[in-house]
């Protein structure tokens, strides 16, 4: 399986008259899970949007296999690079199978017909996300966790080698968050898909990332293995928060415990 290389060079981007990213360099490790963390408005989502062609850069470029993605035909790019945006919209009354099959969009031109291969891609995506039995249900009737799995299934049906996800666990309770992240690890291990996602929860980020990226002020402040990035000094710099970082007794990964101002003394 070919591993695609995705990287950003001297990237600046923003909206209207605010520049959010400034001269950022970022190399996505192929075949690994990269998680981006950072305080609100540090440019995490902007980075993901610029790297997936949703936002044109002011300066610099994003390269996929050495070619600028902003000069690649959208459909061609969408066959290699997938993105699950923060708030996708489900048309009223659409069924799960129908929505998931929209993921096949970039594989069809104006005249090519739907074939067995497309049905297989959709079935595979439904199985991977464990929603085969929901196939004919309207998406409106599903719970938040189920719905998020449907959106991930749509991104899987796109069968891209690189998948970007903007906060795939927001609005989910903790068990569903873990379920979604486990699913992404399966995908990474079974298909070698390169995954880049933005997560809010630092401990889940450290737990699931191969490569952890901490952003601050529109730049990458620290990146590397979670144990090197999730440190008390970095948390202080990136989030302005005093904390303790200890090792998770199960996984050995770092866990961050915020200190705050209250209830710090042990009480009986």
């Amino acid at each position, binding site marked *: 399986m070919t591993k695609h290389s995705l990287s950003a060079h001297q990237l600046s981007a923003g*909206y*209207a008259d605010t520049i959010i990213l400034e001269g950022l360099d970022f190399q996505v490790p192929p075949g690994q899970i990269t998680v981006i963390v950072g305080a609100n408005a540090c440019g995490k989502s902007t980075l993901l*949007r610029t790297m*997936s*062609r*949703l936002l044109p850069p002011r300066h610099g470029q994003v390269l996929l296999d050495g070619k600028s993605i902003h000069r690649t035909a*959208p*459909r*061609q*790019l*969408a*066959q290699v690079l*997938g*993105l*699950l*945006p*923060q*708030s*996708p*919209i*489900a*048309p*009223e*009354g*659409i*069924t799960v*199978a*129908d*929505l998931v*099959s*929209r*993921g096949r*969009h*970039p594989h*069809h031109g*104006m005249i090519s017909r*739907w074939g*067995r291969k497309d*049905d*297989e891609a*959709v*079935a*595979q995506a*439904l*199985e991977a996300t464990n929603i*085969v039995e929901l*196939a*004919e249900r309207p998406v409106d009737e599903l719970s938040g966790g189920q719905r998020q799995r449907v959106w991930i299934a749509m*991104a899987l049906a*796109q069968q891209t080698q690189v998948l970007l996800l903007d906060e795939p666990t927001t609005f989910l309770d903790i068990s569903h968050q873990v379920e979604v992240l486990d699913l992404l690890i399966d995908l990474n291990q079974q298909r070698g898909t390169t995954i880049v996602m933005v997560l809010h929860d630092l401990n889940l980020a450290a737990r699931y990332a191969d490569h952890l990226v901490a952003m601050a002020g529109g730049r990458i402040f620290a990146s590397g293995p979670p144990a090197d990035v999730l440190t008390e000094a970095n948390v202080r710099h990136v989030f302005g928060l005093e904390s303790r970082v200890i090792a998770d007794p199960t996984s050995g990964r770092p866990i961050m415990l915020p200190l705050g101002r209250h209830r710090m003394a042990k009480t009986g």
Partner: protein
Amino acid sequence: MSMASVDIVAAGRIRRVRRRARVVLALLALLVTGFALTLMLGQSFTPPGDVIRVLMGHDVPGATFTVGQLRLPRAVLAVLAGLSFGLGGAAFQIMLRNPLASPDIIGISSGASAAAVFAIVVLRLDGAAVSIFAVAAGLGVALTIYGLSWRNGVAGARLILVGIGVSAMLDSFISYVLVRAPAWDLQEAMRWLTGSVNGARLGQSLPILISLLIFGGLLMSRSRDLQALRLGDDSAAALGTHVTRTRVMVIIAAVGLIAVATAVTGPIAFVAFLSAPIAARIFGSEGSLLIPAALVGAVLVLAGDYVGQFLLPSRYPVGVVTGALGAPYLIFLIVRAHRSGA
């Protein structure tokens, strides 16, 4: 992956495709039946045999005039205008993901109508020149409301409110031109304010037919990308859709359809607004709504005109009937949108 789940997916897809085909065929059958009935039924009844002979060019005493000169041009115009309004309305509603974003609500139909009435009454133009005037004005209005509601991207709600304002201004312009017109005539005034197919001639349908072929074809060629836009701009882009290019093409096509038809019939009230929601009720949200909405539009205009002519105590233009149908739905939508805070 197990065979069972592939079969579930394939079976579901085939079921959707069949259901879609059944609905389209049923709507088509309804339209054809309606068309045939309006040729036979009027103030007098013309037997089907006579209608067919007139259509084949034979001279049938009595029928040649009523069917050939009155009913046929009227029915053809009603169907073509209805198809145009249905398509154009659905395109806007799907693209902006809001049923209120219909061209007859946000001022595009009023713009085309104002331009047509100005071209006819003041400039004394006719035929293709009026259509071109109407299309240009329609695009001008689209550009204006897009520009006025632009603030880091276009939000649907802002665009709709701006459009309603622009629409009100254009309607008062139409009234002004009509009142100042030398040959002020109630029938004509009704046409430019609510839409009418009165006094139809077969030649009037030609520009609409051409516009359906060109703009309708352009729209259908963008149908897949329009489907992707329903998932949100970001998702559509992530699926490889060229969002801006799709928007521009859809706007040109939809404005063209609406404006050319409006230049002949006036803005037949609420047909663009009602067609896609009615089609969605019957059709479900699977697949593209464009063709079902076009068929619903044609049925609405044809049936609305028949009701206005023959089933009410006095004769009304079709726009009065469709307007009476559309207004309650508009109120319902606004109340619902207000409740959900959207």
